[in-house]
């Protein structure tokens, strides 16, 4: 354990709050911040932006975020890694460079790309079976709108080795945003990893990344429980998790002093298993992690020791997530008050179903749920008897039409307004007159590693 570095969590999703990162920079003694802007679905949102304007397609919050944070990072030598590049990493980097230059700030910015594999997926005759259900890609190939491989940490390590202050990537494995700085800062072997010790260190680093990639979810936020979350202090001023990682791989999860939230065995392990499938084979492009021997031990307040992650060599395949156009939805929400609220909702739904039929509007599904009653837990939250529901002060209904035809979706909200004067009485809060949106199906698949070539570019510093 000769030396250690400290890395802090940035955002956990596009739209997250960057203010807690200030405490990590100012009094968390971090050398790096790594920020995850891309949930599985975010590329679908960015694709819609890019369709409107080819200069977009990146997570635009990175610009105001860095305008706030860079002047705090720069004097302390803190470096920043993020995947806000989305579908357009160069566009993101240029937007950041332009915005910071206008303030007189000129960091060295590196761009990692090469994750876009859509042309490969679109090429006829290629096999990209659905990773989870084995379906043939030919069923969706013509409707694919994006397809990105999860790159590993290597290009991030190289960017930092070249002195980049800010690294902006497209799709990389979320945890690679953190593993890259650890490999760079601690001198770990990555491309040339060979021994069990090499892979176990990488497994520790991957685990650190996994614990930090969801911002406050690693320090007491979103703590699912009954009667316990209330004992987590001051979530409004939560400190995002910080990892102190030693050269031998031993790591401590903590947070900046005088912040809210809670870092302990319970909050850290809720995040450890988050969005993990087989915990003995958590795949990444850099190492395959086995969590079966991990030990999490509280060492004082807000300090958890992490040891025991075991790693083995990655496979020769990389994960790809693609998206395909998958029809349209239109949705309305409407409130019905006492008396007879439940019966009135049922009558309204029946009238809509008959109108869809009479007007011969083609659709796949009319999905109905009752916010306040069953939208979170479906039939696992049993509905009270109709007589009791009819005595409720109000019942809300949400109806969502799924259809392959955009015009049908556009017309769905128009089925409702007549009921304001000619339907059941005492309603309020109708929303959804014009409320069509395109649905995207997700297509996870694998691609041979040698078909994916990561690219690293360093922008010329303008001054």
């Amino acid at each position, binding site marked *: 354990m000769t030396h250690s570095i400290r890395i802090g969590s940035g955002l956990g999703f596009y739209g997250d709050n960057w203010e807690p990162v200030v405490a990590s920079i100012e009094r968390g003694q971090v050398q790096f911040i790594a920020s995850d802007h891309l949930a599985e679905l975010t590329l679908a949102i960015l694709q819609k932006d890019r369709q409107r304007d080819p200069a977009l397609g990146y997570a635009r919050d990175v610009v105001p975020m860095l305008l706030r944070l860079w002047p705090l990072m720069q004097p302390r030598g803190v470096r920043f890694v993020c995947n806000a590049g989305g579908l357009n990493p160069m566009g993101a980097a240029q937007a950041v460079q332009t915005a910071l230059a206008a303030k007189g700030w000129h960091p060295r910015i590196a761009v990692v790309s090469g994750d876009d594999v859509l042309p490969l997926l679109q090429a006829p005759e290629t096999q990209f079976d659905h990773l989870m259900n084995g379906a043939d890609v030919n069923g969706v190939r013509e409707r694919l709108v994006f397809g990105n491989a999860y790159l590993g940490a290597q290009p991030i390590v190289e960017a930092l080795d070249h002195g980049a202050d800010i690294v902006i990537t497209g799709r990389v494995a979320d945890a690679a945003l953190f593993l890259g700085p650890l490999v760079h800062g601690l001198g770990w072997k990555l491309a040339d990893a060979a021994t069990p010790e090499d892979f176990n260190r990488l497994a520790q680093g991957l685990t650190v990344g996994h614990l930090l990639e969801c911002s406050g979810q690693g320090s007491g936020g979103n703590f*699912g429980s009954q*009667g316990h979350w209330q004992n987590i202090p001051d979530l409004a001023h939560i400190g995002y998790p910080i990892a102190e990682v030693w050269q031998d791989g031993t790591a401590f999860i903590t947070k900046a002093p005088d912040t809210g939230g809670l870092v302990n065995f319970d909050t850290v392990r809720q995040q450890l*298993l988050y969005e993990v*499938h087989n*915990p*003995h084979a958590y795949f990444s492009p850099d190492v395959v992690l086995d969590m079966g021997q991990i030990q999490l031990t*509280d060492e004082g*307040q807000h300090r958890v020791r992490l040891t025991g992650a075991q790693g083995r060599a990655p496979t020769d395949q990389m994960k790809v997530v693609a998206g395909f156009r998958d029809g349209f*939805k239109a949705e309305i929400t409407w409130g019905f008050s006492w008396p007879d609220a439940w019966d009135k909702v049922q009558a309204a739904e029946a009238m809509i179903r008959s109108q869809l039929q009479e007007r011969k509007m083609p659709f796949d599904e009319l999905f109905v749920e009752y916010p306040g009653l069953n939208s979170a837990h479906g039939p696992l939250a049993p509905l009270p008897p109709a007589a009791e529901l009819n005595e409720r002060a109000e019942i809300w209904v949400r109806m969502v039409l799924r259809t392959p035809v955009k015009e049908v979706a556009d017309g769905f909200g128009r089925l409702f307004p007549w009921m304001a004067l000619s339907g059941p009485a005492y309603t309020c809060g109708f929303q959804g007159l014009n409320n069509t949106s395109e649905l995207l199906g997700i297509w996870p698949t694998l691609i041979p590693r040698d078909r994916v070539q990561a690219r690293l570019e360093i922008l010329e510093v303008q001054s």
Partner: protein
Amino acid sequence: MSKTLRIPLVRIAHARSGDKADWVDFGLFAWNEAGYRIIEREVTAAKVQAHFAPWLPGQVDAWPLPNILALKFVLHGALQGGGARNLRLDNLGKAMGAALLRMEIELSAEELAEAQKSPRRGWWPNGTPSTITS
């Protein structure tokens, strides 16, 4: 022979759910070793599948992680094909961890008492009740 009780999991465990494509995954956590012995016995893949079946009758995979007093579950086919095509308000299954905590298990009164009075493994701030009774 002691009395057998039926309680919802929420009384002795905590949980978080997440999504990947069409699968929802759950981490289920006991507060201490006594609680872990109960959930490891009671919360099997078959029972979790039966719990969700009236709503989402997909396959369930399970892995025990005694090192962190936890069980891992994955429920297939839980999101109408995936978050960006799911029509539910909870299109990402964020609230489904609580749906797992609704599940009822059977245990003896002594087992419940032991799980409730045994200390937590984790450190909690001053002022936190010393037992998990809720």
